[in-house]
């Protein structure tokens, strides 16, 4: 009898703990990202950017008298976990909106859940065009890959005067596959030739076989639209094999870890990105200063993108005295000419932002600004 009673007691207390009290003075915002794993800095930078935006809003009195709080989940870089993250955020935590992911493959895994439940989702930095096609509740506050591919192809042909390219792409990543295709389109239309198109799989550590076959092809440069961990390893192995051509890439390169992994091998390396810390605009410098104060590190592009996405969500929330998902969706969709850290953001009919990109050069362990490309 006593044991039965004890059992009942334990069960009730579990149930009580399970349904945590909902605070009426708090607006809960969800975030999912890869905070551990090979793309760990993507998730942590984005989360920190969001946290800073929320803190600033709370210091100014919150949104309509309510405090903003963040619920962030780590998906370890796995698409199946990303989907679970979003389900948990929406069904258990009852967030008003979801911010994330960085990697397009994981945004594509999470987006259908947000769409089904009609909860707005804003991806700060997934650039594959398919992401926002998942439905009218899915937004993005960065440029898309057809533009990003064009930026690097134009830069290679017009600025660097290159004609022969090799591509090394990640066959497991929607981002990498898409970006490589868009790059190819513009590059060939500008008179360039893709001499070799090799593949790897995210998580690989040995790229010597692919690089060796590139070596005999005598290309002007190698385009690697991948993520920083693999890019760093590829750069090292390319230089080991005597491939000294410039390396070009996309925003997946943006991480302080890139230089840690690639080291001196990242000589003559350029990539397209959302923002540069050298941008003199006051909103950018103020963001960098506040971010450094809070996290003791210069923010990367993904932190800036996360910050902007959160700001746009906060601005939309401010227009709504009573939160209603459909109205929140409309308010986000109405974003026009928002002056963000990553540039001027206007959401178009496809719920994508049209904005400029920057080209950065890896030099002495930092990323130096080279040029800005407007859409």
């Amino acid at each position, binding site marked *: 009898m006593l044991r039965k009673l004890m059992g009942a007691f334990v069960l009730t207390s579990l149930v009580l703990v399970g349904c945590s009290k909902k605070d009426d003075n708090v607006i809960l915002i969800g975030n999912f990202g890869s905070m551990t*794993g090979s793309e760990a800095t993507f998730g942590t930078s984005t989360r920190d950017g969001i946290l800073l935006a929320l803190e600033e809003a709370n210091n100014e009195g919150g949104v309509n008298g309510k405090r903003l709080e963040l619920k962030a989940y780590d998906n370890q870089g796995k698409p199946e976990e990303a989907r679970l993250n979003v389900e948990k955020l929406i069904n258990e935590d009852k967030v008003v909106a979801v911010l994330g992911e960085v990697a397009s493959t994981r945004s594509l895994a999470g987006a259908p859940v947000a769409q089904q439940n009609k909860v707005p989702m804003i991806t700060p930095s997934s650039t594959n065009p398919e992401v926002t096609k998942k439905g009218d509740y899915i937004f993005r506050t960065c440029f898309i890959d057809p533009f990003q591919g064009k930026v690097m192809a134009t830069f290679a042909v017009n600025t660097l005067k290159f004609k022969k390219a090799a591509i090394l792409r990640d066959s497991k990543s929607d981002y990498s596959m898409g970006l490589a295709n868009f790059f190819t389109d513009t590059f060939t239309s500008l008179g360039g030739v893709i001499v070799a198109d090799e593949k790897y799989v995210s998580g690989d550590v*040995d790229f010597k*076989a692919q690089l060796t076959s590139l070596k005999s092809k005598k290309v002007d440069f190698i385009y690697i639209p991948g993520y920083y961990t693999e890019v760093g390893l590829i750069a090292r192995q390319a230089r080991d094999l005597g491939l000294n051509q410039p390396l070009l890439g996309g925003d997946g390169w943006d991480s302080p870890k890139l230089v840690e992994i690639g080291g001196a091998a990242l000589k003559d390396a350029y990539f397209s990105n959302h923002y540069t810390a050298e941008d003199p605009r006051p909103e950018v410098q103020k963001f960098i200063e506040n971010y450094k104060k809070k996290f003791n590190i210069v923010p990367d592009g993904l932190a800036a993108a996360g910050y902007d996405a959160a700001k746009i969500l906060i601005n939309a929330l401010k227009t709504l005295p009573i939160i209603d998902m459909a109205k929140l969706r409309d308010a986000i969709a109405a974003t026009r000419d928002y002056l963000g850290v990553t540039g001027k953001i206007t959401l178009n009919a496809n719920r994508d932002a049209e904005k400029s990109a920057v080209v950065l050069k890896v030099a002495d362990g930092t990323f130096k600004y080279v040029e800005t490309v407007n859409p």
Partner: protein
Amino acid sequence: MGELLQHTVNGLALGSIYALVALGYTMVFGVLSLINFAHGEIFMMGAFAGLYTHRYVMSHFAAPQWILSLLVLVGAMLGSAIVGLIIEKFAYRPLRKSPRINILITAIGASLFLQYGGQLVFGASPQFFPDIFTKTTFNLGGGATIDSNQILIFIVAIVLMAMLQFLVFKTQFGRAMRAISHSLETSSVIGINVNKIIMITFIIGSSLAGAAGVLYGVAYPKIDPIMGLMPGLKAFVAAVLGGIGNITGAVIGALILGLSETYVAGYLSSTYRDALAFIILILVLLLRPSGILGTKKIEKV
């Protein structure tokens, strides 16, 4: 021509690392008829032990580079040996008289325990193995190159394998080990300290895996707690290919696997690289289950 030579150099370097791991599989199988599925994780532990030894030495002493690299290698081998020893003592020894399947499942459990325990201790994000050696690249002609790390891999692998060969075939311990591989019961009857020999076998196999972990970290400087999974499986395939239980066979199998993986990734597509190892495994099991150098024997796994 230069391309083929380059692929061959890369393949042999990869194969040498597989060989060091495969030796551990084959030795343990030789004495216990057990496939130690945690061996890939012992390899991973070696890489981390090497990393932490490097950090410790760097922050405490100003050691010359050759001493530092030697310490890293020894630290890794020691770390792996301890992990191997613990697994043997607490996971396998109590089950030595149990049915094969129990001990096999325990091996898988130990493997998972180390993978996820490793994530708890080292963190799930990858860490980057330091450049222990200054790298120089040598030209081999035809555009092919070999770097000092690859040469080092060959040297360490050959030296360790030669030591192992000597140990197994020229010493008292080796004779005892070979006796156990013939019959565990008979060996204990004729006065061989079976527990001690098995322990030493685990120590040797694990420390070879630890050395492989460092060499792997030097060649591919990204290490994480689940890094042992694929190389572990590949080395297992190599051991089966060469004839499990046979030391020379494991080395030959590993070199064949390293070369064929590199050729496939270089000339066909890297998509088939991982598939290849398992195609080889299936073909070997179908066509020559005892492997290239293995002896025919009915197994009761």
